[in-house]
Each structure stands twice: as C-alpha cells, then as structure tokens.
C-alpha cells in the first residue's frame, strides 16, 4: 500500500470520475440550533435559584444554517474555516452524532469517524483487551474483531506489548494502537479531523499511505485541517465555512487562497 508517491494527473482523473458518480452525502438546507442559557448555569442549585427568580433565558445559537452540499462518491472534500465556524458540527451531523434541527441529512454507506484515536482506551486493560473494547465502540462484533486482530497488532507494531496494560504504553504507542484499530476498516465514508500526525515520522508515513489507500479504494473522504498544505495535497474540492454558513465552495486552490487572503491582517490564522 505504498501509494504516497502518486502524481498530480491521477488526482484530476479521480475528480472526473467522482463527478460522474452518485452523491453519497447530501445536506439539504440543513440547520443546527444550539439552545444555550444566556448565562452559564453550572449547578442544579443555581438553576433552581435562578429559575425561581425568573432569570433563566434561553438563547438560540445557530451553529449551522442554510447548508446545501452534496458530496459524490470517491470525492476528497476539505473543510476549512476559523474556529467556531461549524466545521465540527458538520462532521457530527455526517457521523450521526447529532441530528439537524432543520433540513435533511442523507448519508449512504458506512461512516468511519477517525477522530482522536484511542479515546475509549482504558489504562488498566491490556492492549489486546482494548482492541476489542475499541472495536465494539466502533460497532464491530467479537467475531469481526477476532478476524482483524492480527492485522491491527501487526500494523501498530506492538506484538511484544500486546498483553501489557495500556497505562504502561508511551503516548506514541497508544496512538499507534488507536490508529490501527480505527483504520482497519473498509469504510465508504471517512471523516478526518486533524489527525495526520500520529507517532514518529515512519509511522506517519505509514498512516498517510493508509489514508491514500482508502482513497484508491473509492472511499469518500472529508478532511478538516488548519494546514493548507495538507488540504491542497489531499483534496479536490474545499468548503469554507464561516459563522455557520458556506462562504465559498470550489476547487481547493481557489478556496484556500481566498481563505488565506481573508486571514491576512492577523498574519497567523486562528489556531
């Protein structure tokens, strides 16, 4: 799966194929409203007191509004925008973590959310036990995990430590294991939220190759990154979100350049 040497012309070819194919993700006039108390009420006692005094006012905040977007099969779509623009909310909608307040979300295929590896690891359990636990969190059965097990350990290069509690792993080892579990899949849709920097350099190369492998298998990929280079390298089309709305959508280069231009005065893009 050594695919990271792929050249530009192939990318354009991919894009043409993608255009002729069906939509796998459709966001139709989607809005997400958060209902948030005007003042942060952290405790129940405070809530009761303020309720009694009639001080609770609920405010509406639209994290996303009037979003129309269709993503076709095999497309690699980038998502950019400042913090709080609604990028994560959009990923949550597609990953089924949240439902839209208005509009319709249609997702065809299995979604693999590759966000923060090893989030479900328990430090007292061994690597082996954690693989099964993490697999279950991703919706796999015991049998499916049995079948994957050897490949996962092989990829993470952790055979020697597989029966050691994860608390004794270095953070790099834990991240490698998390990455290996999360990516030993055959997803239709892949969601990547700033995760291309796991482990040491050689492992990073390995993981990037795996990402590109998914693309070649025809997976649709949605990538959120603050790194313009990554976006330009991986994506064909980019969506620029600002204040919960789509500010611009189009070919990667144009959108990234326009976005960077808008960020100029501050010199350093937020975060």
């Amino acid at each position, binding site marked *: 799966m050594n695919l990271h040497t792929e050249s530009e012309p192939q990318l354009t070819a991919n894009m043409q194929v993608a255009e002729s194919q069906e939509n796998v993700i459709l966001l139709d006039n989607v809005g997400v409203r*958060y*209902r948030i108390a005007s003042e942060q*009420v*952290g*405790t*129940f*006692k405070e*809530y009761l007191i303020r309720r009694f005094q009639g001080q609770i006012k609920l405010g509406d905040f639209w994290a996303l509004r009037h979003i129309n977007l269709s993503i076709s099969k095999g497309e690699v779509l980038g998502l950019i925008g400042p913090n709080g623009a609604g990028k994560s909310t959009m990923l*949550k*909608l597609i*990953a*089924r*973590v*949240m*439902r*839209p307040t208005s*509009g*319709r*979300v*249609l*997702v*065809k*295929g*299995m*979604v693999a*959310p590759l*966000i*923060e590896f090893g*989030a*479900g690891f*328990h430090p*007292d*359990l061994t690597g082996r*036990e954690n693989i*099964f*636990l993490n697999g*279950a*969190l*991703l*919706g*796999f*059965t*015991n049998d499916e995990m049995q079948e994957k097990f050897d490949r996962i350990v092989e990829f993470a290069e952790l055979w020697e430590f597989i029966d050691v*509690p994860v608390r004794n792993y270095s953070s790099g080892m834990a991240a490698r294991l998390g990455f290996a579990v999360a990516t030993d899949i*055959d997803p*239709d849709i892949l969601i990547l939220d700033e995760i291309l920097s796991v482990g040491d350099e050689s492992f990073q190369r390995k993981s990037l190759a795996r990402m590109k492998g998914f693309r070649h298998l025809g997976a649709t990929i949605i990538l959120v990154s603050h790194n313009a280079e990554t976006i330009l390298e991986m994506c064909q089309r980019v969506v620029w979100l600002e204040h919960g709305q789509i500010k611009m959508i189009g070919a990667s280069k144009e959108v990234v350049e326009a976005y960077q231009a808008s960020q100029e005065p501050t010199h350093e893009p937020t975060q």
Partner: protein
Amino acid sequence: MDKATQVPIYDSDRQGSAATEEFWAILKYRYLIVQFVRRDILTRYKRSALGVAWTMLNPLGTMLILTLVFSRAFGGSQEGYAAYVLSGLIAWNFFAQSTNAATLHLVWGGSLLKKIYIPRTSFAISATGTGLINLLLSLVPLLIVMVIIQVPIRWTMIFLPIPILFLAMFTLGIGLIVSTMAIYYADIAEMFQITLTAWFYLTPIIWSPEILPELYGLWITRLNPMFYLVELFRVPIIYGQVPDVRLLLISGGIAVFTLFSGWMFFTSKSDEFAYRV
C-alpha cells in the same frame, strides 16, 4: 467485507422517534454492552488482590457490623436478622451502585459521544449489567450465611429472577434519569449521593417495617418504591413464600413505569448530549 450487498443508509428525515431508534440501536450494539460490562468487571478486580471475592466480602462485612450493632435495636424479635439485613443490602447495593455507575460512565463517555455514534443508553445499561453480575455473585455469601444461622433454604428461591428483573428495570430507569440530569448540572451526582443515603435509611434494609409508628410509618413504606422491590426480593429467599399477586403487580408497575419514564426522558434529551458534555 462485501459492500455491495449492504450499504447502510442514514436519512435524518426517516428517523423514527428517538425512543424507538435508541431501542433498535441498542440491539445492534449489544456487543458493546458486553464489552463495557467486561471492562468494568476486569478493571475492578485487576487492581485488588482479593479479586472477585471482594464482591462477596464487602456486603458480608457491612452485614456483620450491622448485625452486631443493630440486631437488638431493630430486629430483636426477628429470627435470622443477619440474613434479613444481608438480603436487603444486596438489593440496595445493586440499586445504589448501578445508578451511580450509570452517571459516572455517561460523564466519562462524554468525549466519545461528541465524536462517534454509539447508542447513549449503552452506558446506563452496561452499568446495570455489571451490577447484576455483582448481585448474582453476592448471593453466594447470602446462602452461606443462611446455612450457618439456620434459615431454611426453600424451593421458592426459583422465583428470585422476577424480583431481580423488576429491580433491574427500576434501577435502569432511575439511572437514565439521574445521568441525564448529571450531564446538565455538575452537582446532581453529589446531590444524588445524599439522596441515596437518606433513601437507604427510609427503606427497610436494617430495620423491619413493624417497628415503625403507626401514624406515619405507613406512608414511609407506601410511598417508597424501594420498599416494594426490596420486600419482593426478600419474599422468596428469606420468608420462603411465593410472592403474592398484589406485591407482584405493584412492583411490576413501578418497574415498568420507571423504566419507561427514564427511557423517554433520556432519549428526548440525548441528542443534546453531544454539545452539553
């Protein structure tokens, strides 16, 4: 890995009510429940030298102390006070520990809930599942104590699954309600602890209902759902009787009502969890 045969389609317009969606999702994710329970059992015993024995020794120790201190005060007239206390403790511990764990797990799982889809009730359900295993384990010391203090072990024990089922339904319902509130308010977990302590003393665990003054004693028991559930738990073991229809109906009603309310409340709020935790 044949994709062509089965492409799952998610359409936010075609989703049923949150409550029924959640039910089907749990069936699909049952393996996750098994893994959660396994994790809880494994991690609890990995760190302690006594291992599984601890589950049995813990209520036994409490029972010993309570028996020594209170047998004269509350149950002097009662034969087999030790078994009476122990059976009550087992039922109570199951309720208190599982509802607590449901809250802790949901708050712990918050970071996961923001990122991947898992059925949200899986935390409370697996907490109740872990509690059930502990309950079954602690029946062993109960039987031993009964043999030692010569409380006859009767065939009516076979009715035990019914009170355990009702107790588990009630526990899950309360667990769902309290954990939902704990997501919104940080002090709920703490307040629930205090409530549990008061509730423990208001439920006939260490005392028997006969010692209550007639005037308000009736109300303490009548309005307390745990009174019926603990009583139903004791009937087939300690009293060696077949539970009567009235007690079965009341307990069953409480169990179904609590679980239903908890489920509806939890699922009506659970879509907000992703940005609340």
